[in-house]
């Protein structure tokens, strides 16, 4: 049996996707299924004076119409993380109702659900609903929402804050800043982003009266979590009589982690009408109802001594949370942001303060990277700007401040000033490799030459670190998580020696059917084809915390390894019996137990069969081979890397062309290099999209002016270059696979590299900073103003 781990095995799941036979939620048709359409507020803040559904209820094909009044008795959508105020006041959690009754708090807030025989009939009937709104004043910006006299989002919360938060040592940071020889201070806006998975969210609620049982089909990244939240916190229905199924899911990027009102609505409504209810978002609806990401207003300053060593970092952020607290929302601008402000640098003192702020906008939650891109962006903009201000090379300034290499085994993990302990890292090595791949010195010369010809070439760096493999339950519990973040696995050996691996991780593009099978094949020494990976169904998989935070392989994969170890242990007992040997005398190699020093052996398949046909098993040896495991990680994992972008800005048009993009990552051990490269590519594209193109924009009245693909500019094929990706390997010391995770790296590291490159290109014109996205119009205006 060949070794599988480390090989670029072609994906086993691809066949169904390339032949059009994937099974996404909207593809599912159930007998007697109805279709739902949700009438939404077109106003960002409005009192609902009346809702008249009379005409809608009698329209063609309509089965039922429910309003906020009808669901007012149902609990709201819960939040999974509690971040209290620094003075001890408990986090403010206003109710997030399934449909609003008295007030709409953002464009897209649900007002009524119409259920009909067809989607068209439901939509037509929704047009007949008369809602009498009284328009109220609106605030969309987090910092403005904190000003005295700002419109209030929730009547009971006069300052619009959900919490405030701090981390680090204020006195030490103030002292470090006071003694700094040079201070770089920047106002940084990390704009609001929309994940825009190409599959719109889709749900089917199916209540069976005969079995008194609920089924929810959902395009979710974590079906078990949805089941728990919906059953226990929203609908109050029995968890053991509720099945949640997420088959093929068309991308998530964070936006499909959260429990959404529509999931609970279709489930509840199905019970009300005793028929299945399907709802699928239209894209324009997705734009205003999928949780958004980022949206930070930050002031940050970094101090340096006269040699360029960092002395301190101070950060204050107003984080926009939108109108309600989404599932992970409080954790994103706090524990996934403030804790990453050490970056790769020996920063002796750090202090960060954050306000979590309600506004009349769509709720904000995790989007690929979630907090870590925001931290990385400000650090990497600060250090790049500081290098220019101090007349130093940006690569050298970074290397001067890098934490020295440590493997987490011989050398201990690195304790940061902001709560985390990095597991292992060699930051200079990825930087040096990136410089080599790029040919840095030659490029600087090329840049000089180009400038003489009036061409603006820029080189931008970004050295990122992230915390993923989320997360040790004890740690996150102490930080306010209301859940544990372990993962579970079940390995069922079938009588024929085929193996079913059930995982609580969820694949929505990551390729688990392949990578997890590679892990199992190697551990058992059997063929990849003899392994089936099963996920996405709460009735098949014992439990699961799902996929986000680059946790699948580090946490879910480790759970599988634990279960595989138990399988081998049991297999050895059976093999020992069959071989009439002692377990201690056996070794397991290439799918066979062999009595050491002899040619007596027995294969995995024979042991499997004997386990299910135990005609002569001794007393105490149970039939069957099937094991569960739960794996709770000892620490986060800390992938890192250095990215370098080379751009050329056309000063006539303001257009940025990416000439090269070099990405050197260290994500620990790699199971499937092809898949890891693909994950990095996709992350790079999203991070570059944020730097150059994307951004959700609300006008003063709370209308999302970027609410379609025509207005919200996602990268297309010809907006992006071919990427130069490379890797180093510093294994994770605390999980059995030595893996760190790769899903978010690209999105975290690429954004500042691009912005740094564009600013580097335009520095001769006196341009020191630009606000994302760097659209041609914005860049042209900056060049024009600089020349004026």
């Amino acid at each position, binding site marked *: 049996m060949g070794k599988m781990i480390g090989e670029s095995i072609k994906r086993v799941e691809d066949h169904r996707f*390339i032949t059009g036979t*994937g099974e*996404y939620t*909207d593809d599912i048709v159930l007998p007697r299924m109805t279709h739902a359409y949700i009438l939404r507020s077109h106003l960002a803040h409005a009192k609902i004076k009346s809702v008249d559904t009379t005409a809608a209820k009698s329209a063609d094909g309509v089965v039922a119409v429910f309003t906020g009044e009808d669901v007012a008795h149902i609990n709201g959508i819960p939040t999974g993380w509690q971040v209290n105020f620094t003075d001890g006041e408990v986090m403010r959690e206003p109710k997030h109702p399934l449909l609003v009754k008295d007030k709409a708090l953002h464009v897209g807030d649900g007002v009524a659900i119409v259920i009909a025989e067809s989607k068209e009939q439901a939509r037509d009937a929704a047009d007949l609903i008369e809602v009498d709104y009284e328009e109220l004043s609106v605030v969309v910006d987090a910092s403005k929402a904190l000003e005295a006299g700002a419109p209030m989002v929730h009547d009971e919360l006069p300052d619009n804050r959900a919490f405030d938060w701090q981390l680090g040592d204020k006195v030490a940071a103030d002292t470090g800043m006071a003694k700094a020889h040079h201070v770089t201070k920047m106002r940084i806006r990390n704009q609001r982003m929309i994940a825009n998975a*190409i599959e719109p969210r889709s749900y089917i609620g199916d209540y069976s009266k005969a079995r008194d049982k609920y089924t929810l089909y959902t395009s979710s990244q974590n079906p078990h979590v949805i089941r728990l939240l919906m059953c226990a916190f929203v609908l109050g229905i029995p968890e053991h009589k509720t099945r949640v199924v997420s088959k093929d899911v068309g*991308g998530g990027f964070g936006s499909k982690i959260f429990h959404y009102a529509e999931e609970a609505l279709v489930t509840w409504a199905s019970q009300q009408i005793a028929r299945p209810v399907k709802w699928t978002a239209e894209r*324009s609806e997705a734009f205003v109802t999928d949780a958004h990401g980022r949206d930070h207003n930050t002031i940050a300053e970094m101090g340096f001594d006269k040699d360029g060593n960092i002395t301190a970092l101070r950060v204050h952020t107003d984080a926009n949370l939108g109108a309600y607290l989404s599932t992970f929302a409080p954790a994103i601008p706090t524990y996934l942001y403030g804790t990453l402000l050490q970056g790769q640098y020996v920063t002796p003192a750090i202090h960060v303060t954050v306000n979590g702020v309600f506004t009349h906008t769509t709720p904000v939650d995790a989007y690929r990277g979630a907090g870590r891109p925001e931290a990385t962006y400000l650090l990497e903009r600060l250090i790049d700007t500081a290098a220019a201000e101090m007349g130093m090379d940006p690569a050298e300034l970074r290397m001067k401040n890098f934490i020295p290499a440590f493997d987490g085994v011989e050398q201990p993990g690195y304790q940061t000033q902001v709560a985390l302990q990095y597991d292992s890292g060699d930051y200079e090595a990825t930087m040096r490799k990136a410089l080599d791949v790029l040919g840095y010195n030659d490029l600087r010369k090329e840049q000089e030459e180009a400038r003489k010809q009036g061409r603006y070439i820029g080189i931008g760096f970004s050295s990122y670190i992230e915390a993923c493999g989320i997360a040790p339950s004890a740690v996150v519990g102490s930080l306010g998580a209301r859940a544990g973040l372990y993962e579970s696995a079940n390995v069922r050996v079938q009588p024929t020696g085929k193996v079913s691996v059930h995982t609580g991780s969820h694949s929505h593009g990551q*390729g688990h059917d392949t990578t997890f099978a590679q892990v199992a094949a190697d551990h058992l020494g059997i063929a990849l084809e003899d392994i089936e990976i099963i996920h996405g169904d709460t009735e098949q998989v014992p439990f699961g915390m799902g996929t986000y935070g680059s946790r699948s392989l580090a946490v879910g994969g480790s759970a599988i390894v634990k279960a595989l170890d138990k399988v081998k242990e049991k297999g050895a007992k059976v093999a020992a019996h069959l071989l009439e040997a002692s377990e201690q005398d056996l070794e397991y190699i290439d799918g066979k137990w062999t009595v050491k020093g002899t040619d007596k052996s027995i294969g995995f398949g024979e042991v499997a069969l004997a386990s299910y046909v135990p005609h002569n098993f001794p007393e105490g040896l149970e039939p069957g081979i099937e094991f569960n495991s739960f794996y709770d990680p000892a620490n986060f994992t800390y992938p890192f890397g250095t990215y370098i972008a080379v751009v050329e800005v056309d000063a006539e048009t303001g257009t940025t062309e990416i000439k090269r993009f070099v990405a050197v990552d260290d994500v620990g051990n790699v199971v499937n290099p092809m898949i890891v490269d693909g994950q990095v590519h*996709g992350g790079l594209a999203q991070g570059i999209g944020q730097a150059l193109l994307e951004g959700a924009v609300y006008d003063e009245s709370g209308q999302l002016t970027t609410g*379609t693909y025509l207005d919200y500019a996602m990268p297309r094929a010809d907006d992006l270059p071919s990427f130069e990706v490379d890797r180093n390997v510093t294994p994770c010391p605390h999980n059995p696979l030595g893996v760190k995770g790769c899903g978010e790296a690209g999105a975290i590291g690429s954004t500042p590299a691009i912005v740094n490159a564009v600013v580097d290109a335009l520095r001769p014109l006196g341009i020191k900073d630009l606000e994302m996205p760097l659209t041609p119009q914005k860049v042209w205006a900056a060049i024009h103003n600089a020349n004026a």
Partner: protein
Amino acid sequence: MKVSMTVNGVAVSHDVEPRTLLVQFLRENLGLTGTHVGCDTSSCGACTLILNGEAVKSCSLLAAQCEGAEVTTIEGLAASDGTLHPIQEGFREKHGLQCGYCTPGMIMSSVQLLQRNPNPSDQEIRHALEGNFCRCTGYDNIVKAVQWAASQS
């Protein structure tokens, strides 16, 4: 109203509302769910298929406009014995897909590209596929998938 056309070589006929889109006709009336819907502004290309030899976005045509037409969807691209089209192979060989949602549309657009330009450059592929969004791959491996398919003929 009654609409008849040939889909993947099979004559089909259904009574539909006049406002029924071609993509709805395929997904809802024929149960061919390989053609996906990703937007409501003809921007994403997930619904791309081949209509009378041209790649089109099936969300922007009424089924009624396609009376008598020849339609090929992703389900009809492989040979009847199951042999995959080189573009399908290319997407698998070069990891040109992740979640798979944009993939049918991306493959159908690529089929037309190679019909018109059997040996496209990197830039020509990127330009030809700019009507199709992919949020997962960053497009790099999609370009390689198309090049792989081009190299097979």
